[in-house]
């Protein structure tokens, strides 16, 4: 072992907030806590919901065609109303939660991995490779992402994997630019220079000394990006070039309900409410995450913990 390990060891011994400490911090911020609880409920519903529902939400019930919401005598599932084939909206929202969240999660992960990797290269290596990467980013960013996605999806067909890839490509620049900016700043700091002069390999310098510094920013970014990508997928699906039948997402549900707007507003209304609630929860959570992972700002939350207990 060489002495380059030392800065890393020091970093490991530095008191970091444990998982429990983070949860305590979450408990302080009422809005963030509510957001986290709501998101957990939605994710759980998406995971275990569809098998438990059985045929509810898929089987037609012509007696309940376009049944309005809040009529308890129709049964619990019809509480948010039913669609044109008498299928309860609430059950369909739960079924649609899984593709909605999976597409967004896949697109966020894909764009994050590619973006951070290219950002590390552009920031740490720089040079011609860095320039080329940045110019390609400019091309992607010089044009409205939705239009770009429409062109590409029209060519390759609106399959779910294509939607994920297109959304990922249009969002790569966000991670790339953030990572690069952070790396440019970190790489000139003393601990990185120290690692380099003591002979740490490029891989080691980047993975042990630079990457851990970038992670909190990326985590915050991913939370906001998840919301953004979800809205983008909903927009694409709404325009008819996103998810196709028999699969459906919340965006598809809003689009399908549009033709019944004057007679059955609840068809479009409720899926949109869920999109907005999940997006808002993610925004609240990312605000909290930004403060909680920032050692300079964490005291704001910690002070409230101390004064409360």
């Amino acid at each position: 072992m060489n002495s380059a390990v030392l800065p890393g060891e020091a970093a490991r011994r530095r008191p970091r907030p444990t998982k429990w400490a983070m949860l305590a911090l979450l408990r302080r911020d009422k809005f963030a806590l509510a957001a986290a609880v709501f998101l957990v409920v939605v994710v759980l519903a998406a995971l275990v919901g569809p098998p438990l529902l059985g045929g509810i939400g898929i089987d037609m019930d012509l007696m309940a065609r376009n049944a309005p919401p809040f009529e308890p005598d129709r049964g619990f599932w019809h509480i948010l109303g039913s669609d044109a084939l008498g299928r309860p909206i609430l059950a369909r929202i739960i079924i649609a939660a899984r593709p909605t969240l999976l597409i967004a999660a896949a697109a966020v992960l894909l764009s994050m991995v590619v973006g951070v990797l290219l950002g590390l290269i552009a920031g740490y290596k720089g040079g011609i490779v860095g320039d080329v990467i940045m110019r390609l980013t400019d091309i992607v960013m010089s044009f409205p992402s939705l239009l770009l996605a429409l062109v590409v999806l029209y060519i390759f067909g609106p399959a779910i994997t294509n939607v994920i890839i297109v959304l990922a490509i249009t969002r790569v620049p966000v991670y790339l630019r953030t990572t690069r900016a952070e790396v440019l700043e970190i790489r000139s700091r003393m601990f990185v220079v120290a690692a380099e002069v003591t002979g740490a390999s490029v891989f080691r310098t980047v993975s042990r000394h630079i990457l851990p510094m970038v992670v909190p920013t990326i985590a915050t970014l991913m939370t906001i990006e998840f919301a953004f990508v979800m809205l983008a997928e909903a927009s694409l699906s709404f325009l008819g070039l996103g998810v196709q039948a028999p699969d459906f997402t919340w965006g598809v549900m809003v689009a399908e309900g549009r033709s019944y707007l004057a007679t059955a507003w609840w068809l479009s209304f409720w899926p949109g409410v869920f999109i907005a609630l999940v997006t808002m929860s993610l925004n609240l959570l990312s605000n909290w995450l930004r403060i909680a992972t920032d050692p300079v700002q964490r005291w704001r939350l910690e002070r409230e913990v101390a004064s409360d207990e």
Partner: protein
Amino acid sequence: MTYYLTKRTLWSAVSLFGLVVFVFFMARLTGSPVDLYLPIDAPESLREDFERIHGFDLPLWQQFVDFLGGLLTFDFGQSLRQGVPALELVLRAMPTTLLLALYSIGLALIVAIVTGALAAWRPNSIFDRIATLLSLLGASLPNFWVAIVGVLIFAVTLRWVPTSGTGSVAQWILPVFVLAIRPAGLLVQVARSSMISALSSAYVKTAQAKGAAPARIIFIHALRNAMLPVITVAGDQAAGIINGAVIVETIFGFPGVGKLLIDSIMFRDFAVVQAGVMVTAVAIFILNFTIDIVYAVLDPRTRGH
């Protein structure tokens, strides 16, 4: 500054060229437009004529060279669907989209600056908390859903405004509001945090000590300095506004560039797609360029760089 702007213009030209090349070859991948424009039982001679007239029979590289040659004289070719120059169609649709974007971002800026400034004046007050929560909500609402619910409430139920069209002023109200909500939500948060840091600065303390009125401190002393981040983010939102315009134009039947591009993509009207992509990208570039200059005017410190 001049050096910076020149360099930026050159790089943007490179990006623009890359984008055009990308769209040109992407559009050709969708297949020949012949099948869409001629009846399915059209004789082979008719198909060949169609391809020859529009140049689809030439090898791809030849089509590309012709296309680049046309670019130099601003000739994007003819629209297959409407038989007029593609650029003319796009330029005719452009003002609608630009006005829509301009009104929306203007509305969003006014709402954001006023709300952000008032929220920052007393951080953590009731007003601040409500404003913060509402701005988060605004930033989280899907455009198309707001448009649909807006039509339902204000056009179908209350009958205050028409459901679609562009003839009268009333028809602009709903689309502009729908488009303004998301940028307004984001900008309120930016305006609030930059106002908070401006209000805690030394020059504001000095103004307070000299007994300046709160309104004077907020709007004369702090706001001018707090505007810079707001304008930067507003500029970043411009491309987002065009995204939103695609949806809003589709829902409200607005004859703007967004609707034109969607229709052209569906009808394989390559010339119009290329012209539309080019003009939109140029418009966004001009906007960012203008913002850079505005920035230099507002903040003397950036002029040196």
